């Protein structure tokens, strides 16, 4: 008896809510968000309806996602994410930024803690097993930072003889890559949780080099030109992508479309020039998004 009443109330409530939602739709027209329309049931529609979005990014990556005095992260990743948010018809001040260090990026996507991740996120097959990537929106490359007066290190092969020591960040793609070039990981490789610590170790002389994506290293050189330089050319290609849920093909296609649009209308280039481009890194031509 009581169950029946509960069910009846629930049904009535659902109806009422449903009607209210329909009414809401009509009322929405004319506001900023109502101008966008998306396929029913898609992630884009859900986000647009909710008028808020959670974005995972780095808070400690100069030029890409660094939280400064403004209290909001700033950088190229953040700007690219904003382009997507704009396309979703959500105002910028409704973005909630979540700090996603390298080690949690897959987890926060899988668990739905964030709606998308833009965090110097290198596209690779291992990660594609758990999540999906839109993009790439930038092609970085791994390079080596050394002291200005050091001419003994010229590239990754300088570590082959087993004497030179190199620092990177735990769990990053560059750390995995450099392992292939060192003779003995135990005596040549140091891993920290941030590149700042690596830079300090290089300054202090505990390591001979720091390796990661060129843009990050350029950021350090920009801050301290008297101490550091790059040793040689980029030796890998690191395509940065936007991480989303693995099964969400519609959202991925939508982001790819948005990126292509941004490549063509100049907003992508402007985002770069305002952020990481200040360090003197070349943007190059727009990458081709990979719709797998």
């Amino acid at each position: 008896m009581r169950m029946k009443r509960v069910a009846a109330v629930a049904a009535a409530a659902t109806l009422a809510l449903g009607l209210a939602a329909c009414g809401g739709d009509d009322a929405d027209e004319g506001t900023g968000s109502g101008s966008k329309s998306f396929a029913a049931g898609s992630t884009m529609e859900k986000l647009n309806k909710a008028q808020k979005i959670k974005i995972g990014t780095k808070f400690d990556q100069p030029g890409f996602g660094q939280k400064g005095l403004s209290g909001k992260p700033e950088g190229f990743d953040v700007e690219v994410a904003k382009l997507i948010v704009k396309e979703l018809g959500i105002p910028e001040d409704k973005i909630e930024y979540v700090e996603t260090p390298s080690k949690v990026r897959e987890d926060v996507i899988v668990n739905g803690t964030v709606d998308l991740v833009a965090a110097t996120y290198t596209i690779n097959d291992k990660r594609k097993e758990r999540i999906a990537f839109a993009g790439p929106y930038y092609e970085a490359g791994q390079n080596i930072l050394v002291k200005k007066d050091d001419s003994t290190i010229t590239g990754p092969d300088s570590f082959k003889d087993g004497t030179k020591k190199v620092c990177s960040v735990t769990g990053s793609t560059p750390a995995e890559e450099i392992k292939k070039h060192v003779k003995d990981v135990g005596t040549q490789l140091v891993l920290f949780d941030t590149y700042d610590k690596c830079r300090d170790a290089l300054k202090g002389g505990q390591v001979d080099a720091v390796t990661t994506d060129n843009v990050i290293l350029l950021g350090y050189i920009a801050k301290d030109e008297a101490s550091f330089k790059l040793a040689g050319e980029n030796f890998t290609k690191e395509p940065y992508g936007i991480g989303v849920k693995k099964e969400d093909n519609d959202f991925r296609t939508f982001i790819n479309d948005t990126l292509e649009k941004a490549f063509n209308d100049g907003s992508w280039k402007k985002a770069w020039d305002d952020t990481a481009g200040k360090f003197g890194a070349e943007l190059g031509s727009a990458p081709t998004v990979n719709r797998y």
Partner: protein
Amino acid sequence: MSVLIDKFDVFAGGFWLTLQICVLAAIGALILGAVMAVLRISPVPPLRAVGTAYVNIFRNMPLTVVMFFAAFGLPALGSNADFLRIPVLDSLFTRLGTDLPYFRFALIALVLYTAAFVCEALRSGVNAVPAGQAEAARSLGLTFGQNLRHVVLPQSWKASVVPLGSVIIAMIKNSALIGFFGVVGDLSQSADQLTSAEGYAFIPVAIGISIGYLIMTVPLGALLDRLEKRQAVAR
């Protein structure tokens, strides 16, 4: 859970490195802690002050801060802790002798921090020896040193066994920090590596390293229980 089998060598390697630093740090902390304990119970006020100051500093500082001082403070002072490259030891524990000083830095931090607790555990043991024992020894004409060696310390060990064991177990768990201060390949850093670089799910990896730590701590705890039954003061 397949990660435990697929990456068994990573877990085993991590376990091995953690075990190495724990053995070294335990030896160091026991020696330094014993020295400090002797200072703290000595009849000479300045020595007592040194021991007390040491314990108060290192017992009340977070280990993370001590680690920071070791890993980033020592280099700033121009030291790579080369004095720890002890000729025979560094062939047994190869990480001691490498040009990468972070293993040595971590060892110094663990030893300094743990020694304060070792000192207090030992001192509580000394305090458990009835005062009459030391007084009797002194009335027989034994010096402070003889008194410690023959009368007080042999008895105090028994009362110290259990608190000392707890201190060493705590130290093993504290060693999980070293992976965040430049030491590559210990248990916790390996876990970090597996979850972030190789994209394994966190929970199985965390279970894996937990097992690693438990293999070290649980038998130690069991051993202590037995020691206590056999050794500890019968009251």
